[in-house]
Protein backbone atom coordinates (compact mmCIF):
# COMPACT_ATOMS: atom_id res chain seq x y z
CA UNK A 1 0.00 0.00 0.00
CA UNK A 2 2.78 2.38 1.01
CA UNK A 3 4.72 1.48 -2.12
CA UNK A 4 1.69 2.21 -4.32
CA UNK A 5 1.26 5.62 -2.68
CA UNK A 6 4.93 6.46 -3.21
CA UNK A 7 4.70 5.30 -6.83
CA UNK A 8 1.66 7.53 -7.48
CA UNK A 9 3.40 10.54 -5.89
CA UNK A 10 6.54 9.92 -7.95
CA UNK A 11 4.42 9.63 -11.13
CA UNK A 12 2.72 12.94 -10.37
CA UNK A 13 6.01 14.69 -9.68
CA UNK A 14 7.67 13.40 -12.84
CA UNK A 15 4.61 13.88 -15.06
CA UNK A 16 6.40 15.40 -18.04
CA UNK A 17 5.27 13.55 -21.18
CA UNK A 18 7.66 12.49 -23.89
CA UNK A 19 7.24 14.08 -27.32
CA UNK A 20 6.04 11.45 -29.83
CA UNK A 21 8.51 10.53 -32.56
CA UNK A 22 8.04 11.95 -36.06
CA UNK A 23 8.51 9.43 -38.87
CA UNK A 24 10.00 10.49 -42.13
CA UNK A 25 11.79 13.68 -41.06
CA UNK A 26 13.53 14.07 -44.39
CA UNK A 27 10.35 14.03 -46.44
CA UNK A 28 8.56 16.40 -44.05
CA UNK A 29 11.46 18.80 -44.37
CA UNK A 30 11.52 18.40 -48.15
CA UNK A 31 7.85 19.34 -48.32
CA UNK A 32 8.40 22.39 -46.11
CA UNK A 33 11.34 23.47 -48.28
CA UNK A 34 9.23 23.08 -51.43
CA UNK A 35 7.19 26.11 -50.40
CA UNK A 36 8.03 28.86 -52.89
CA UNK A 37 8.31 31.78 -50.54
CA UNK A 38 8.54 34.23 -53.42
CA UNK A 39 4.90 33.38 -54.24
CA UNK A 40 3.57 34.46 -50.85
CA UNK A 41 3.84 38.23 -50.76
CA UNK A 42 2.48 38.75 -54.32
CA UNK A 43 -0.48 36.58 -53.29
CA UNK A 44 -1.01 38.74 -50.20
CA UNK A 45 -1.03 41.87 -52.38
CA UNK A 46 -3.46 40.33 -54.90
CA UNK A 47 -5.94 39.13 -52.27
CA UNK A 48 -5.67 42.47 -50.46
CA UNK A 49 -6.60 44.28 -53.69
CA UNK A 50 -9.45 41.84 -54.21
CA UNK A 51 -10.91 42.85 -50.84
CA UNK A 52 -10.30 46.56 -51.37
CA UNK A 53 -12.13 46.49 -54.71
CA UNK A 54 -15.01 44.36 -53.41
CA UNK A 55 -18.42 45.60 -52.26
CA UNK A 56 -18.89 45.19 -48.49
CA UNK A 57 -21.58 42.93 -47.09
CA UNK A 58 -24.82 44.80 -46.49
CA UNK A 59 -25.22 46.49 -43.12
CA UNK A 60 -28.97 46.22 -43.36
CA UNK A 61 -30.47 45.31 -40.02
CA UNK A 62 -27.60 46.71 -37.95
CA UNK A 63 -28.02 49.97 -36.02
CA UNK A 64 -26.07 52.84 -37.60
CA UNK A 65 -23.98 53.38 -34.46
CA UNK A 66 -23.03 49.70 -34.24
CA UNK A 67 -22.22 48.26 -37.63
CA UNK A 68 -20.04 45.48 -36.30
CA UNK A 69 -19.61 42.82 -37.54
CA UNK A 70 -20.57 43.89 -41.03
CA UNK A 71 -18.75 47.23 -41.24
CA UNK A 72 -16.72 47.00 -44.42
CA UNK A 73 -16.54 43.22 -44.38
CA UNK A 74 -15.87 41.76 -47.80
CA UNK A 75 -15.78 38.21 -49.06
CA UNK A 76 -17.49 37.74 -52.45
CA UNK A 77 -14.49 38.55 -54.66
CA UNK A 78 -12.18 36.55 -52.39
CA UNK A 79 -14.44 33.51 -52.74
CA UNK A 80 -14.02 33.74 -56.50
CA UNK A 81 -10.26 34.40 -56.27
CA UNK A 82 -9.51 31.42 -54.04
CA UNK A 83 -11.67 29.08 -56.11
CA UNK A 84 -9.93 30.17 -59.33
CA UNK A 85 -6.43 29.84 -57.86
CA UNK A 86 -7.15 26.29 -56.67
CA UNK A 87 -8.78 25.37 -59.98
CA UNK A 88 -5.73 26.71 -61.85
CA UNK A 89 -3.53 24.39 -59.77
CA UNK A 90 -5.56 21.45 -61.03
CA UNK A 91 -7.86 20.93 -58.07
CA UNK A 92 -11.51 20.03 -58.37
CA UNK A 93 -13.05 22.86 -56.38
CA UNK A 94 -16.39 22.75 -54.59
CA UNK A 95 -18.28 25.68 -53.19
CA UNK A 96 -20.07 24.39 -50.12
CA UNK A 97 -23.00 26.72 -49.54
CA UNK A 98 -24.02 26.76 -45.88
CA UNK A 99 -27.14 28.28 -44.34
CA UNK A 100 -30.54 28.97 -45.82
CA UNK A 101 -30.94 32.59 -44.82
CA UNK A 102 -28.66 35.61 -45.16
CA UNK A 103 -25.83 35.88 -44.65
CA UNK A 104 -25.21 32.67 -46.56
CA UNK A 105 -21.68 31.27 -46.28
CA UNK A 106 -19.75 30.18 -49.35
CA UNK A 107 -16.92 27.88 -48.23
CA UNK A 108 -14.36 26.89 -50.86
CA UNK A 109 -13.18 23.29 -50.64
CA UNK A 110 -10.49 21.32 -52.51
CA UNK A 111 -8.99 17.92 -51.73
CA UNK A 112 -6.01 15.66 -52.32
CA UNK A 113 -7.06 12.04 -51.80
CA UNK A 114 -4.98 10.02 -49.38
CA UNK A 115 -3.15 7.00 -50.76
CA UNK A 116 -3.26 4.57 -47.84
CA UNK A 117 -6.02 5.95 -45.65
CA UNK A 118 -8.29 8.15 -47.79
CA UNK A 119 -11.17 8.09 -45.31
CA UNK A 120 -9.10 9.91 -42.73
CA UNK A 121 -9.32 13.59 -43.63
CA UNK A 122 -6.95 16.32 -42.45
CA UNK A 123 -8.56 19.74 -42.74
CA UNK A 124 -6.39 22.77 -43.47
CA UNK A 125 -8.48 25.86 -42.95
CA UNK A 126 -8.46 29.63 -42.82
CA UNK A 127 -11.06 32.29 -43.35
CA UNK A 128 -11.22 34.32 -46.54
CA UNK A 129 -13.45 37.20 -45.44
CA UNK A 130 -11.77 40.39 -44.24
CA UNK A 131 -12.40 43.79 -42.73
CA UNK A 132 -11.12 46.39 -45.20
CA UNK A 133 -8.15 44.90 -47.10
CA UNK A 134 -7.25 42.53 -44.27
CA UNK A 135 -3.62 42.04 -45.28
CA UNK A 136 -2.73 40.18 -42.09
CA UNK A 137 -6.30 39.21 -41.16
CA UNK A 138 -6.56 36.96 -43.03
CA UNK A 139 -4.90 37.39 -46.40
CA UNK A 140 -1.59 36.04 -45.03
CA UNK A 141 -3.23 32.75 -44.05
CA UNK A 142 -5.13 32.45 -47.36
CA UNK A 143 -1.86 33.03 -49.25
CA UNK A 144 -0.12 30.41 -47.09
CA UNK A 145 -2.90 27.89 -47.68
CA UNK A 146 -2.82 28.45 -51.43
CA UNK A 147 0.95 28.04 -51.57
CA UNK A 148 0.81 24.86 -49.44
CA UNK A 149 -1.95 23.56 -51.73
CA UNK A 150 0.27 24.24 -54.75
CA UNK A 151 3.26 22.50 -53.19
CA UNK A 152 1.18 19.51 -52.05
CA UNK A 153 0.36 18.58 -55.67
CA UNK A 154 3.87 17.22 -56.08
CA UNK A 155 3.70 14.87 -53.07
CA UNK A 156 1.63 11.90 -51.89
CA UNK A 157 0.09 11.55 -48.46
CA UNK A 158 -1.41 8.57 -46.62
CA UNK A 159 -4.38 10.63 -45.45
CA UNK A 160 -6.70 12.88 -47.44
CA UNK A 161 -5.97 16.60 -47.22
CA UNK A 162 -8.93 18.96 -47.46
CA UNK A 163 -8.23 22.64 -47.95
CA UNK A 164 -11.13 24.80 -46.80
CA UNK A 165 -11.33 28.57 -47.14
CA UNK A 166 -14.09 29.43 -44.70
CA UNK A 167 -16.43 32.29 -45.31
CA UNK A 168 -17.77 34.70 -42.66
CA UNK A 169 -15.39 33.96 -39.79
CA UNK A 170 -15.62 37.63 -38.87
CA UNK A 171 -19.34 37.12 -38.54
CA UNK A 172 -18.95 34.82 -35.52
CA UNK A 173 -17.25 31.94 -37.34
CA UNK A 174 -20.47 31.46 -39.25
CA UNK A 175 -18.91 29.71 -42.24
CA UNK A 176 -17.05 27.04 -40.27
CA UNK A 177 -19.82 26.59 -37.72
CA UNK A 178 -22.39 25.89 -40.41
CA UNK A 179 -19.93 23.73 -42.34
CA UNK A 180 -19.40 21.53 -39.27
CA UNK A 181 -23.00 21.59 -38.03
CA UNK A 182 -24.34 20.64 -41.48
CA UNK A 183 -22.18 17.51 -41.37
CA UNK A 184 -19.51 18.39 -43.95
CA UNK A 185 -16.72 17.70 -41.46
CA UNK A 186 -17.93 14.30 -40.25
CA UNK A 187 -14.97 12.56 -41.85
CA UNK A 188 -12.39 15.03 -40.53
CA UNK A 189 -9.94 13.40 -38.11
CA UNK A 190 -7.75 16.43 -37.36
CA UNK A 191 -7.31 20.04 -38.44
CA UNK A 192 -4.78 22.83 -38.87
CA UNK A 193 -6.34 26.30 -38.78
CA UNK A 194 -4.58 29.59 -39.47
CA UNK A 195 -5.73 33.10 -38.65
CA UNK A 196 -3.27 36.02 -39.05
CA UNK A 197 0.25 34.67 -39.52
CA UNK A 198 2.21 37.62 -40.91
CA UNK A 199 2.71 40.33 -38.30
CA UNK A 200 5.73 40.38 -36.03
CA UNK A 201 7.63 42.99 -34.07
CA UNK A 202 11.02 43.10 -32.37
CA UNK A 203 9.89 45.74 -29.89
CA UNK A 204 9.66 44.80 -26.21
CA UNK A 205 6.05 45.06 -25.12
CA UNK A 206 4.70 44.48 -28.63
CA UNK A 207 3.01 41.29 -27.51
CA UNK A 208 0.43 41.72 -24.76
CA UNK A 209 -0.49 39.06 -22.25
CA UNK A 210 -3.59 37.12 -23.26
CA UNK A 211 -6.40 36.98 -20.69
CA UNK A 212 -4.00 36.76 -17.74
CA UNK A 213 -1.74 34.28 -19.54
CA UNK A 214 1.81 35.57 -19.50
CA UNK A 215 3.36 35.78 -22.97
CA UNK A 216 6.91 36.68 -24.05
CA UNK A 217 6.71 40.43 -24.56
CA UNK A 218 8.62 40.63 -27.87
CA UNK A 219 6.05 39.65 -30.49
CA UNK A 220 8.36 37.91 -32.94
CA UNK A 221 6.95 34.37 -32.72
CA UNK A 222 4.14 32.33 -34.19
CA UNK A 223 1.61 31.16 -31.63
CA UNK A 224 0.82 27.47 -32.08
CA UNK A 225 -2.09 26.48 -29.89
CA UNK A 226 -3.47 23.06 -29.09
CA UNK A 227 -5.59 21.55 -26.38
CA UNK A 228 -5.30 18.16 -24.69
CA UNK A 229 -6.67 16.44 -27.80
CA UNK A 230 -4.00 18.00 -29.97
CA UNK A 231 -1.22 18.26 -27.38
CA UNK A 232 1.07 15.68 -28.94
CA UNK A 233 0.77 17.22 -32.40
CA UNK A 234 1.47 20.69 -30.99
CA UNK A 235 4.56 19.31 -29.24
CA UNK A 236 5.71 17.62 -32.47
CA UNK A 237 5.34 20.86 -34.43
CA UNK A 238 7.31 22.91 -31.90
CA UNK A 239 9.94 20.20 -31.57
CA UNK A 240 10.32 19.85 -35.35
CA UNK A 241 10.71 23.59 -35.79
CA UNK A 242 13.26 23.69 -32.97
CA UNK A 243 15.29 20.82 -34.48
CA UNK A 244 15.41 22.25 -38.01
CA UNK A 245 15.20 25.94 -37.16
CA UNK A 246 12.21 26.50 -39.47
CA UNK A 247 10.30 29.23 -37.65
CA UNK A 248 9.96 30.63 -34.15
CA UNK A 249 6.88 29.00 -32.66
CA UNK A 250 5.49 29.43 -29.19
CA UNK A 251 3.58 26.27 -28.30
CA UNK A 252 0.59 26.77 -26.04
CA UNK A 253 -1.65 24.06 -24.63
CA UNK A 254 -5.09 25.04 -23.42
CA UNK A 255 -6.49 22.88 -20.61
CA UNK A 256 -8.69 19.91 -21.59
CA UNK A 257 -10.86 20.91 -24.58
CA UNK A 258 -10.08 24.60 -24.05
CA UNK A 259 -13.60 25.77 -23.38
CA UNK A 260 -12.87 27.56 -20.13
CA UNK A 261 -13.11 31.22 -19.24
CA UNK A 262 -9.39 31.96 -19.46
CA UNK A 263 -8.54 29.67 -22.38
CA UNK A 264 -11.61 30.47 -24.48
CA UNK A 265 -9.63 33.31 -26.06
CA UNK A 266 -7.66 30.66 -27.93
CA UNK A 267 -10.88 29.36 -29.54
CA UNK A 268 -11.52 32.60 -31.42
CA UNK A 269 -11.36 31.20 -34.95
CA UNK A 270 -12.60 28.44 -37.21
CA UNK A 271 -11.12 25.64 -35.06
CA UNK A 272 -13.27 26.64 -32.07
CA UNK A 273 -16.17 24.34 -32.84
CA UNK A 274 -13.78 21.49 -33.68
CA UNK A 275 -12.27 21.80 -30.19
CA UNK A 276 -15.74 21.91 -28.73
CA UNK A 277 -16.64 18.71 -30.64
CA UNK A 278 -13.51 16.99 -29.32
CA UNK A 279 -11.60 16.87 -32.61
CA UNK A 280 -7.85 17.46 -32.51
CA UNK A 281 -7.03 20.82 -34.06
CA UNK A 282 -4.00 23.07 -33.93
CA UNK A 283 -4.36 26.81 -34.35
CA UNK A 284 -1.68 29.12 -35.79
CA UNK A 285 -1.75 32.86 -35.19
CA UNK A 286 0.47 35.89 -34.72
CA UNK A 287 -1.56 37.04 -31.73
CA UNK A 288 -4.15 39.16 -33.55
CA UNK A 289 -5.29 42.16 -31.48
CA UNK A 290 -2.86 41.21 -28.70
CA UNK A 291 -0.01 42.16 -31.06
CA UNK A 292 -1.10 43.71 -34.36
CA UNK A 293 -2.10 47.38 -33.94
CA UNK A 294 -3.77 47.29 -37.38
CA UNK A 295 -6.18 44.52 -36.43
CA UNK A 296 -9.60 45.12 -38.05
CA UNK A 297 -8.54 48.58 -39.23
CA UNK A 298 -8.11 50.12 -42.70
CA UNK A 299 -4.37 50.23 -41.93
CA UNK A 300 -4.08 46.43 -42.11
CA UNK A 301 -2.14 46.81 -45.35
CA UNK A 302 0.47 44.57 -47.10
CA UNK A 303 3.38 46.84 -46.15
CA UNK A 304 2.77 46.05 -42.46
CA UNK A 305 3.45 42.34 -43.11
CA UNK A 306 6.86 40.94 -42.16
CA UNK A 307 7.69 38.87 -45.23
CA UNK A 308 10.35 36.58 -43.71
CA UNK A 309 8.07 35.88 -40.77
CA UNK A 310 5.26 34.88 -43.13
CA UNK A 311 7.62 32.70 -45.21
CA UNK A 312 8.96 30.79 -42.21
CA UNK A 313 5.52 30.34 -40.70
CA UNK A 314 4.16 28.97 -43.98
CA UNK A 315 7.00 26.44 -44.07
CA UNK A 316 6.24 25.36 -40.52
CA UNK A 317 2.53 24.95 -41.26
CA UNK A 318 3.44 22.92 -44.35
CA UNK A 319 5.67 20.70 -42.21
CA UNK A 320 2.82 20.30 -39.71
CA UNK A 321 0.55 19.16 -42.51
CA UNK A 322 3.14 16.68 -43.77
CA UNK A 323 3.44 15.21 -40.25
CA UNK A 324 -0.31 15.00 -39.74
CA UNK A 325 -1.25 13.71 -43.22
CA UNK A 326 1.69 11.27 -43.17
CA UNK A 327 3.66 12.28 -46.21
CA UNK A 328 4.84 9.30 -48.28
CA UNK A 329 8.43 8.46 -49.13
Amino acid at each position, binding site marked *: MKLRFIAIVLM*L*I*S*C*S*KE*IPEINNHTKVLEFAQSIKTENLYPLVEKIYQTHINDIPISNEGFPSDDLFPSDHLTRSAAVGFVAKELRDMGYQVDTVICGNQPPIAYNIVAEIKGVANPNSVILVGCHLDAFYGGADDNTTAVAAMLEIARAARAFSFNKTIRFVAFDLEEFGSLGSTRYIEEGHAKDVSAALVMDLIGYSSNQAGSQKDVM*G*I*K*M*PSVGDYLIVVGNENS*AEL*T*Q*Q*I*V*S*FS*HTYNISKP*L*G*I*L*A*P*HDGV*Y*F*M*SSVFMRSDHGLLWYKGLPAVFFSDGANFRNPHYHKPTDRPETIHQDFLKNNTKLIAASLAILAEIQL
Partner: protein
Amino acid sequence: MRKLRIILTWCMLSCTLLMAQTNIIYTPYLQSGGMYFSSKNITSAGIGSGIGLCLGISKYILVQSDANIYWMNGNAGAFRFAIGYKRTGRWSPAVFTNLTTIFGARTEILLDDGARPKNPALALSVRLSPLRWENEQGFISVFELGYGFGNYNAKYLETCFLSLGLKL
Protein backbone atom coordinates in the same frame (compact mmCIF):
# COMPACT_ATOMS: atom_id res chain seq x y z
CA MET B 1 18.96 25.65 -5.81
CA ARG B 2 18.64 28.45 -3.28
CA LYS B 3 14.83 28.20 -3.47
CA LEU B 4 14.99 24.44 -2.89
CA ARG B 5 17.19 24.95 0.18
CA ILE B 6 14.70 27.46 1.59
CA ILE B 7 11.81 25.04 1.02
CA LEU B 8 13.64 22.09 2.62
CA THR B 9 14.68 24.14 5.64
CA TRP B 10 11.13 25.36 6.03
CA CYS B 11 9.75 21.78 5.86
CA MET B 12 12.25 20.49 8.41
CA LEU B 13 11.45 23.34 10.79
CA SER B 14 7.71 22.62 10.51
CA CYS B 15 8.16 18.90 11.17
CA THR B 16 10.43 19.55 14.16
CA LEU B 17 7.87 21.92 15.65
CA LEU B 18 5.07 19.40 15.17
CA MET B 19 6.96 16.48 16.62
CA ALA B 20 7.94 18.43 19.71
CA GLN B 21 4.34 19.04 20.76
CA THR B 22 1.92 16.91 22.76
CA ASN B 23 -1.07 19.21 23.47
CA ILE B 24 -2.20 19.90 19.96
CA ILE B 25 -5.60 21.50 19.29
CA TYR B 26 -7.21 20.12 16.15
CA THR B 27 -9.47 22.45 14.16
CA PRO B 28 -10.95 21.25 10.88
CA TYR B 29 -11.94 24.14 8.62
CA LEU B 30 -13.60 25.07 5.34
CA GLN B 31 -12.45 27.92 3.18
CA SER B 32 -13.30 29.65 -0.07
CA GLY B 33 -10.91 31.72 -2.13
CA GLY B 34 -8.91 32.10 -5.26
CA MET B 35 -5.41 31.64 -6.60
CA TYR B 36 -3.38 32.80 -9.57
CA PHE B 37 -0.13 31.10 -10.51
CA SER B 38 1.46 32.92 -13.41
CA SER B 39 4.81 31.89 -14.81
CA LYS B 40 6.43 31.99 -18.23
CA ASN B 41 5.32 28.37 -18.79
CA ILE B 42 2.31 27.73 -16.58
CA THR B 43 -0.86 29.68 -15.85
CA SER B 44 -3.15 28.16 -13.30
CA ALA B 45 -5.97 30.14 -11.78
CA GLY B 46 -9.42 30.00 -10.38
CA ILE B 47 -11.93 30.59 -7.67
CA GLY B 48 -13.00 27.74 -5.48
CA SER B 49 -13.08 26.19 -2.06
CA GLY B 50 -11.25 23.75 0.13
CA ILE B 51 -11.15 21.73 3.31
CA GLY B 52 -8.31 21.59 5.81
CA LEU B 53 -7.02 20.86 9.26
CA CYS B 54 -5.43 23.44 11.54
CA LEU B 55 -3.18 22.28 14.37
CA GLY B 56 -2.68 24.68 17.24
CA ILE B 57 0.64 23.51 18.58
CA SER B 58 1.21 26.36 21.00
CA LYS B 59 -0.38 29.67 22.02
CA TYR B 60 1.24 31.30 19.02
CA ILE B 61 2.06 28.65 16.45
CA LEU B 62 -0.37 27.16 13.94
CA VAL B 63 0.18 24.51 11.31
CA GLN B 64 -2.39 24.24 8.54
CA SER B 65 -2.88 21.82 5.71
CA ASP B 66 -5.69 22.05 3.20
CA ALA B 67 -6.84 20.69 -0.15
CA ASN B 68 -8.59 23.05 -2.57
CA ILE B 69 -10.27 22.93 -5.93
CA TYR B 70 -10.50 25.94 -8.27
CA TRP B 71 -12.51 26.62 -11.41
CA MET B 72 -11.92 29.17 -14.19
CA ASN B 73 -9.20 27.65 -16.29
CA GLY B 74 -10.35 24.06 -16.01
CA ASN B 75 -10.36 22.18 -12.71
CA ALA B 76 -7.20 22.95 -10.81
CA GLY B 77 -6.32 21.58 -7.40
CA ALA B 78 -3.94 22.80 -4.74
CA PHE B 79 -2.50 21.24 -1.60
CA ARG B 80 -1.31 23.84 0.86
CA PHE B 81 0.90 23.24 3.86
CA ALA B 82 1.39 26.26 6.09
CA ILE B 83 3.05 27.24 9.31
CA GLY B 84 1.86 30.41 11.00
CA TYR B 85 2.28 32.76 13.90
CA LYS B 86 -0.79 34.29 15.53
CA ARG B 87 -1.68 36.79 18.18
CA THR B 88 -3.38 35.38 21.26
CA GLY B 89 -6.84 36.59 22.27
CA ARG B 90 -10.17 36.88 20.52
CA TRP B 91 -8.82 38.99 17.68
CA SER B 92 -5.99 36.77 16.54
CA PRO B 93 -4.43 38.00 13.28
CA ALA B 94 -1.89 35.62 11.85
CA VAL B 95 0.84 35.36 9.29
CA PHE B 96 1.57 32.11 7.49
CA THR B 97 4.30 30.83 5.25
CA ASN B 98 2.86 28.38 2.74
CA LEU B 99 4.17 25.65 0.52
CA THR B 100 1.57 24.94 -2.17
CA THR B 101 1.53 22.29 -4.86
CA ILE B 102 -0.77 23.11 -7.76
CA PHE B 103 -1.94 20.43 -10.16
CA GLY B 104 -4.74 19.69 -12.62
CA ALA B 105 -5.88 21.88 -15.50
CA ARG B 106 -3.67 24.76 -16.54
CA THR B 107 -2.55 26.64 -19.63
CA GLU B 108 0.95 25.59 -20.60
CA ILE B 109 3.54 27.29 -22.74
CA LEU B 110 5.78 24.56 -24.09
CA LEU B 111 9.51 24.63 -23.57
CA ASP B 112 11.61 25.54 -26.63
CA ASP B 113 12.09 21.89 -27.61
CA GLY B 114 8.37 21.15 -27.37
CA ALA B 115 8.46 19.48 -23.94
CA ARG B 116 5.69 20.23 -21.49
CA PRO B 117 6.49 21.98 -18.21
CA LYS B 118 6.63 19.73 -15.18
CA ASN B 119 3.59 18.93 -13.10
CA PRO B 120 2.75 19.88 -10.37
CA ALA B 121 3.68 23.53 -9.99
CA LEU B 122 5.16 24.59 -6.66
CA ALA B 123 4.77 27.89 -4.86
CA LEU B 124 6.22 29.31 -1.66
CA SER B 125 4.27 32.23 -0.28
CA VAL B 126 3.44 34.40 2.70
CA ARG B 127 -0.20 34.82 3.69
CA LEU B 128 -1.56 37.54 5.94
CA SER B 129 -4.75 36.98 7.93
CA PRO B 130 -5.46 40.36 9.55
CA LEU B 131 -9.19 39.77 10.04
CA ARG B 132 -9.09 36.60 12.09
CA TRP B 133 -11.01 35.91 15.28
CA GLU B 134 -10.82 32.90 17.55
CA ASN B 135 -12.59 31.55 20.65
CA GLU B 136 -13.03 28.22 22.44
CA GLN B 137 -15.31 26.88 19.69
CA GLY B 138 -13.24 27.74 16.66
CA PHE B 139 -12.09 30.55 14.38
CA ILE B 140 -13.29 32.73 11.54
CA SER B 141 -11.08 34.62 9.15
CA VAL B 142 -11.99 36.82 6.21
CA PHE B 143 -10.00 38.36 3.35
CA GLU B 144 -6.67 36.67 3.75
CA LEU B 145 -4.07 37.65 1.15
CA GLY B 146 -0.97 35.81 0.05
CA TYR B 147 1.91 36.50 -2.29
CA GLY B 148 4.87 34.41 -3.28
CA PHE B 149 6.92 32.83 -5.99
CA GLY B 150 7.04 29.49 -7.74
CA ASN B 151 8.87 27.39 -10.26
CA TYR B 152 9.32 28.62 -13.86
CA ASN B 153 9.77 32.15 -12.43
CA ALA B 154 6.21 32.29 -11.27
CA LYS B 155 4.48 34.88 -9.20
CA TYR B 156 1.79 33.43 -7.01
CA LEU B 157 -1.21 35.26 -5.60
CA GLU B 158 -3.76 33.72 -3.31
CA THR B 159 -6.72 34.97 -1.42
CA CYS B 160 -9.14 33.50 1.03
CA PHE B 161 -12.55 35.12 1.20
CA LEU B 162 -13.73 33.17 4.21
CA SER B 163 -12.20 30.50 6.41
CA LEU B 164 -14.27 28.88 9.12
CA GLY B 165 -12.98 26.30 11.62
CA LEU B 166 -14.53 24.34 14.50
CA LYS B 167 -12.27 23.03 17.25
CA LEU B 168 -12.53 19.33 18.07
